[in-house]
């Protein structure tokens, strides 16, 4: 999947992946896509909850070799 910005939140624990994600989203334009990688197993549910509450769109998520990757589309202002 195409993305506009990539963030590495691997080996960080709660709540750092979410905080990094929030910061990353503030650095891109609406409708642009942020790719973020995490290893915290709790991040799977947390990114879903984050997107549900903030209105950003979780386009896709996958897991490979214990790394979770999320693609998040920034909401319109």
């Amino acid at each position, binding site marked *: 999947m195409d993305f506009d910005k990539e963030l590495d939140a691997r*080996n*960080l*624990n*709660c*709540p*750092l992946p*979410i*905080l990094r*994600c*929030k910061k990353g989203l503030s650095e891109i334009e609406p409708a642009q896509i942020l790719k973020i990688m995490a*290893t*915290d197993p709790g991040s799977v549910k947390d990114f879903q909850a*984050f997107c549900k*509450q*903030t209105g950003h769109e979780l386009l896709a998520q996958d897991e490979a070799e214990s790394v979770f990757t999320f693609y998040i589309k920034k909401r319109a202002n």
Partner: protein
Amino acid sequence: MAKKLALIASKGSLDWAYPPFILASTAAALDYEVSIFFTFYGLTLLKKDLSDLKVSPLGNPAMPMPVPMPNFVQMLPGMESMATMMMKQKIASKGVASIEDLRSACIEAGVKLIACQMTVDLFDFKKTDFIDEIEFGGAATFFEFAGESDVNLFI
């Protein structure tokens, strides 16, 4: 309109420093307006120097220990420092943020930090001991934002 979170932080040990700052920084990331009222031992969390935050195994039977340890051993001098050192190593090795980092994240996200003026007087704290990004207030100040909050927690 943004949701609001009001926290009271009343504890000043290394372990209990986490919940208020984790919840506040996360809520801010979720677009909440957040205020934390620091009272009694919680005021320690607003000091410039956070390096003396400690965790004590004493009176905490749920604290995981490398080897089973009876209470009277935990009373010995140096045990608290040792437990603190081990906790800090664990924190770093598991990728858990430091309290300094979480507090900075809160400040950066605009979390309002309010120090209980009564506690400052009670313990003879100096205002210069604290970071600059705080306000001082009392119980009425807490209710000013707590009364309008969606979530209120006492920690």
